[in-house]
C-alpha cells in the first residue's frame, strides 16, 4: 500500500505489511522462519 501521493514524504518500504478492507497482507514464512514480503492476501 502506498503513501498518500504528494502530501507526505514516504520513509521505509512501501511494501510493508498492512491491513485494508478487512484483509491483511501476510508475508509467508521461509523454511528458516524469515518473513518474505509478497502480495499474498490474508484475513484481518
Amino acid at each position, binding site marked *: 500500500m502506498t*503513501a498518500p501521493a504528494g502530501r*507526505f*514524504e*514516504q520513509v521505509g518500504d512501501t511494501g510493508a505489511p498492512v491491513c485494508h478492507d478487512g*484483509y491483511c*497482507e501476510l508475508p509467508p*514464512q521461509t523454511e528458516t522462519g524469515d518473513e518474505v514480503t509478497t502480495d499474498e492476501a490474508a*484475513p*484481518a
Partner: protein
Amino acid sequence: MSPTVKVDIWSDIACPWCFVGKRRFEQGAAEFGGEVEVEYHSFELSPDTPVSYAGSEAQFLAEHKRIPQPQAEHMLAQMTEIAAGEGLAYDFAALRHANTVLAHQALHLAKARGRQVELKERLLRAYFEEGRDLNRIEQIAALAADVGLDAAEVTAALTEDRYLEDVRADQRQAVEYGIGAVPFFVVGGRFAVSGAQEPAVFAEALRRAAQEPA
C-alpha cells in the same frame, strides 16, 4: 535538545498488523531516544462487522470475506507466529470478532482524559490475547477502568455515542490523506510510514522529523 516529535497513527483494534506495528514503532522510538507524542486516530477495517457475531475468526472470514476456512485458519496461524516474534500472544481461537466503532469512541474519550495510549494498548491486548468481547459496552468500560478511566463515564459516553462524530472526523481525514490501509504513521506532520515496518524505519523517520521540523 531535540523538539518533541508528534506522531499521528491511524489504526484499528481488529488489525493484527496494527499491534505488531505498534511494538515495532515503540522499539524504533526507543532507538530514536527523543521525546515522542503519540495520538491515535480511528480507522475501521470492517465497519460492516455485525455486533452479535458469535462464530470464530476463521468462520467469520469464511462467511463474510469468502476465504475458505482452512486457508483462513492457516493464515491466522501464520499471523500468530509473526506476532509471537514481537512478544505478542495472539489467540485467534479465543478472539471475539468485533465491530470496533465503540472501542474507537472510547479511545477518543481516553484522549480527552489523557489516557489514550494506555487504553489503546489495553484494548489491543484484550482483543488479540484475552478474547474479550469489544462489542459490549460493559467490557470496554471495564478495560477503560483498568487504565484509570471512569467506567460510568465510559458507559454513558458509549451508550449515547458522544464520540461518534470524532470517529467519523478521523475517518474523513484518512480519506483526505489517501490512507487506505493501516497501520499508518504520520511523523512530525511531514513524513509517512505505511505498515508494520521494521523499528529502524520508525527511528529514521523520527530522527528526520526532529532534524527537519515541518
